[in-house]
């Protein structure tokens, strides 16, 4: 349950490039959230997101088949078919929605899907607490 509250701050979780250009986010716990949420919980969320992105960008037989099939059909197949990446992005959107509903909204936080920010950051909006009791 999210209250209509003023936005106190926004925290940005930046990308982690230690493994190259693969889409990964830093799991470092931002200090602004210390008072709001468990470090463990947050890190688990970010890790799950990282795993999901890794699955989307995975170089496997499925991605190769998809790529070759697309090439052979002159990429027309993309008009009919959803790519694996898009399917995983949908999964990620659903996951973030769930997390917001179950965990973050009750704590006055909101996770924004990174795809809305160009896969650059995970934006965490911190709402002002107005006497909300947990």
């Amino acid at each position: 349950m999210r209250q209509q509250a003023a936005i106190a701050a926004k925290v940005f979780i930046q990308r982690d490039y230690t493994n190259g250009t693969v889409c990964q986010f830093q799991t470092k716990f931002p200090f602004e959230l210390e008072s709001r949420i468990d470090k463990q919980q947050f890190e688990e969320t970010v890790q799950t997101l990282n795993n999901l992105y890794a699955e989307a960008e995975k170089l496997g037989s499925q991605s190769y088949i998809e790529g070759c099939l697309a090439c052979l059909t002159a990429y027309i197949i993309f008009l009919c078919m959803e790519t694996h990446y898009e399917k995983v992005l949908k999964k990620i959107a659903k996951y973030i929605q769930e997390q917001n509903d179950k965990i973050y909204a009750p704590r006055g936080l909101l996770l924004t899907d990174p795809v809305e920010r160009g896969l650059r950051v995970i934006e965490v909006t911190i709402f002002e607490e107005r006497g909300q009791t947990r």
Partner: protein
Amino acid sequence: MKNCEYQQIDPRALSVSPMSAQSGAAEEVRPVQPSRRKWEVFPGKNRFFCDGRIIVARQSGVLPLTLGLIVVTCGLFFAFDFTDPGILPRATPEEAADIEKQIDTSGSSTYRPPPRTKEILINQQVVKLKYCFTCKMFRPPRTSHCSLCDNCVERFDHHCPWVGNCVGKRNYRFFYSFIISLSFLTSFIFGCVVTHITLREYPHNVLKKIKGSWSSKRCTEETGNPYSYNNIITNCCVTLCGPMPPSLIDRRGVVPLSEASPAASATEVELPPFLAKNDSNMCTRSTKDVLERMFRSFYSGALCPPGTPKTARVGVEVSGSTTSSAERSPSAGCSRQHARRPVAAPCPPPFSRSSKKRDSLRSSNPAFRLASPSPSLSRTTLILGEGPDIGVIPIP
């Protein structure tokens, strides 16, 4: 493709039209044929599509390859030209503010600070990330800002001026495939052009060489072109901008319905004597030309071409008679006897039912081809031989 079913020339019918009408009517089993388009009875070897609007040769050659190359190249071009190369959306103000906060800037915001870089470790290697002032973010690795598009593009390769789009992470594969297929297409076209230019420049030489009758290196005909307008500009203008001649074959015209047309062969073309138009006329003309030639050659004492006994055999076979007697005929027997042997009927029914036979006859018997360019010829000859008072043109 339906071949033109030639109606044999029955001289009796030519002079006495009611007879032909009667005979035609007698043989007629079916009522008047439904109207057909002329392309359906076209005698040539072309194939028609879209109800006669599109005409192609029987043997398409490498057309599928050419078409395929062109279509694939065009498709890839559109794929890489009109798609997002991997543009990074600009940072929201909050993001920018956050980044600013993270970097300790001692200076005020009134002047632009010096370019900022951030060093990170990628797979144990140090990589510098640059800060983009336009997009207000640290560019991810391999991302570059395109000044023409004013965007940061992921895995930026270059901005292609020919196409007016960047080549980046998302459209690199289309660009690469496009370049490869374009190379194939270019070499293909180059080959075509070289062939055509060679043919154009030295048509006499090339064609003579092909036909094996190469007589002189510099043909005397080359020096003068009787068809030239003696002015290069005029020549070009006439070729490129001259009047466009219309199509003479009237593909989509309707074949005139004929009550005299024998019903057994559904694709028979009506053959009004000497007044036929278009393709039926063509059939008649060509058949008559060959007949005349044969007539002349026979009476000029020309030897029978080696394959002609076969023609007789074939011709007779078509009519359904036994072939054994035909085979017995020696080359000297360019005789009227065989022509006069009672064959099944002068009328088309025998020919119509053997459409497959006819095709095989045409394809498998070179002698037949030599002797007669059209399947009707042998039948024609037969019929003529049968005519009692007609000047016999036997099968040579």
